[in-house]
């Protein structure tokens, strides 16, 4: 498969999330994920970005059926599309069915591989566990051969099979985790901040590895991180989350060039670009809203320089804005791109990609 985003022509979904909501039970339940709609195409790398606490990890855990109390799914569905066209309703799986489905079609690489590897088992034992659980008929030699192959695949010396996690470097551990995720050749790989704990050089290597493996094996990736620069580099498509919602999604190039949502804009401006001009660097002032609230307004309104009355009264739907510079690529949840609600055409500065306080002259009462 070509690593270039040619997906747009023969894009077919491998995973569809519809209306997914997750609550953390408490005295005032925290609505961590709110009615998220998202689709992942076969073989594509989807970046999931947002500041910490925006619900991106919770979303991944929910899709993988890994939420633990007090977190639980309160609504929505997740459908997995098999290559042959069959569909699996992930939330309907139970018991043995669920166990068999896990890791088989969806696998996950967790944040911080040190903690995700069992400290008292060898790498071999932890890799073989997967084979043993899913393909019990495989014999010892075959298991050993496959494990060695997998380590080689991710660039780790197969002699490391008999090492314990604490004997490996951070980068090696993360490679082992990736090998573990690939044991059953899944269709989708969730990666939750897979490189955050690593130093920059190792981070580069791991990213290159992921891109290479994706090209070789053709799996789709949901790459979760708060690091926008990293996502721009690796993803085919990006979804931006804010306060439990997807506020914008679209092709990486489009998103970088013409972000629609002011929050996306803010995120893009809050890290230094290697090539771009260094003057446009901003943080986003303000704080995320209280997630225990049920929001009947735009969650970003308080921090948004383009805020108008409608933003406080109505929640913007996540829809395509064909008249915007983005055209048909992607969707955004922002009133500013809907003149019928916003009252005027989108502010010039927003379209220019400037994240700055709105000027008095632009305010329409």
């Amino acid at each position: 498969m070509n690593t270039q985003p040619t997906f747009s022509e023969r894009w077919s979904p491998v995973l569809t999330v519809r209306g997914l909501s997750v609550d953390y039970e408490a005295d005032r339940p925290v609505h961590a994920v709110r009615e998220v709609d998202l689709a992942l195409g076969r073989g594509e790398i989807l970046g999931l970005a947002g500041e910490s606490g925006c619900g991106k990890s919770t979303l991944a855990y929910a899709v993988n059926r890994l939420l633990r109390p007090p977190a639980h799914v309160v609504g929505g569905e997740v459908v997995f599309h098999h290559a042959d066209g069959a569909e699996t309703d992930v939330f309907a799986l139970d018991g043995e069915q669920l166990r068999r489905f896990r890791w088989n079609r969806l696998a996950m690489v967790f944040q911080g591989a040190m903690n995700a590897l069992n400290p008292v088992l060898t790498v071999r034992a932890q890799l073989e566990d997967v084979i043993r659980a899913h393909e019990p008929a495989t014999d010892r030699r075959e298991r050993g051969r496959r494990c060695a192959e997998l380590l080689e695949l991710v660039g780790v010396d197969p002699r490391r099979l008999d090492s314990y996690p604490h004997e490996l470097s951070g980068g090696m551990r993360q490679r082992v985790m990736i090998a573990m995720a690939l044991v059953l050749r899944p269709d989708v790989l969730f990666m939750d901040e897979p490189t955050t704990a690593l130093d920059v050089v190792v981070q580069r290597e791991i990213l290159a590895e992921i891109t290479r493996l994706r090209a070789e094996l053709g799996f789709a990736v949901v790459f979760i991180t708060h690091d926008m620069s990293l996502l721009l580099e690796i993803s085919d498509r990006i979804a931006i989350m804010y306060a439990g919602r997807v506020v914008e999604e679209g092709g990486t190039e489009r998103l970088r060039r013409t972000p629609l949502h002011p929050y996306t804009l803010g995120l893009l401006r809050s890290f230094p670009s290697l090539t771009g001009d260094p003057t446009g660097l901003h943080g986003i002032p303000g704080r995320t809203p209280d997630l225990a609230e049920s929001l009947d307004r735009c969650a970003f309104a308080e921090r948004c320089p383009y805020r108008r009355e409608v933003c406080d009264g109505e929640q913007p739907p996540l829809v395509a804005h064909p008249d915007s510079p983005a055209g048909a690529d992607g969707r955004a949840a922002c009133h500013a791109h809907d003149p019928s609600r916003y009252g005027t055409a989108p502010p010039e500065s927003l379209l220019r990609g400037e994240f700055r306080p709105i000027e008095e002259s632009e305010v329409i009462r």
Partner: protein
Amino acid sequence: MTYLRRKILFYLVAAWIAITVNFAIPRMMPGNPVDILLARLQQGGATVLPQSRRALETALGRSGDGNVLVQYFEYLGNLFTGDLGVSVTYFPTPVLTVLGQALPWTLVLVGVSTLLAFVLGVGVGTFVGWHRGTWLDGVAPTTTFLSAIPYFWLALILLFLFGSFWQVFPLAGGYDYDTTPGLNAEFLLSALHHAVLPGLTIVFSSVGAWMLGMRNMMVSTLSEDYVLTAEAKGLRSRRIMLAYAARNAVLPSIAGFAISLGFVVSGSIVTEAVFSYPGVGYVLLQAVQNNDYPLMQAIFLVITLTVLGANLAVDLLHSVIDPRTRKAE
């Protein structure tokens, strides 16, 4: 292996301190301990033979007239040649002989029941911890009550119910005196029959602590990422529970074995006293009642050294189970 060397060194230091404390205690008394103890013996109604004085002097390292340091080395010398003096109670039997007869009883009784309690407690703790949030959580408070019961009182109650009231188990002793001690079925059965109540006492009183410790560690371990990973990997829950959660959760229990063993041994002393079980605890009680200081001190030493030995063994086991300790700094 640095871990091993460090552990062995630690237990050697601990043994040395215990031996030194044993030497020092009689010296904390004002006056000449030998005279005082002899006087106390006489008050107790025992006939004090000249040999008794020598027995005490050997035990306390007082036979020479030298200063404390000389006495200390003399005491150490005696210790290493196995000369712990002569028992006053079982005069003129050497202390070592008395201990040699009592030690196997205690080793088997305490060893087996501790192992049983550990396996049972860790097993149930694993299960209860795994199923946290269910009705099984109620098990923890119940065992709290169980483990709050003092050993010797539980022993008394068991003795009263099963020995005195229902008369299913013998009231005292380690075996029927009709049988000949040795490897014959009759004797072994009788020994087993006698060991049931003391054994049960030790198991009942210590199982709760193991269970609770394991349960709590299971609960902590279950929130570890590797358990989550194991779940995501689609492993069978049995495998997750045992190889991922319990295998890690049990490590502190094993590391904490040292501390717990001291309690169990202490508890078994009073238990033996209640059942007149012919082990070290019972002999210690005899020694206490007869002011038999040589015997008493020897028992303290033997118990301590045995506990240290057992702990060293468990620490070695720990290093086998936890690969990280093998090359710890």
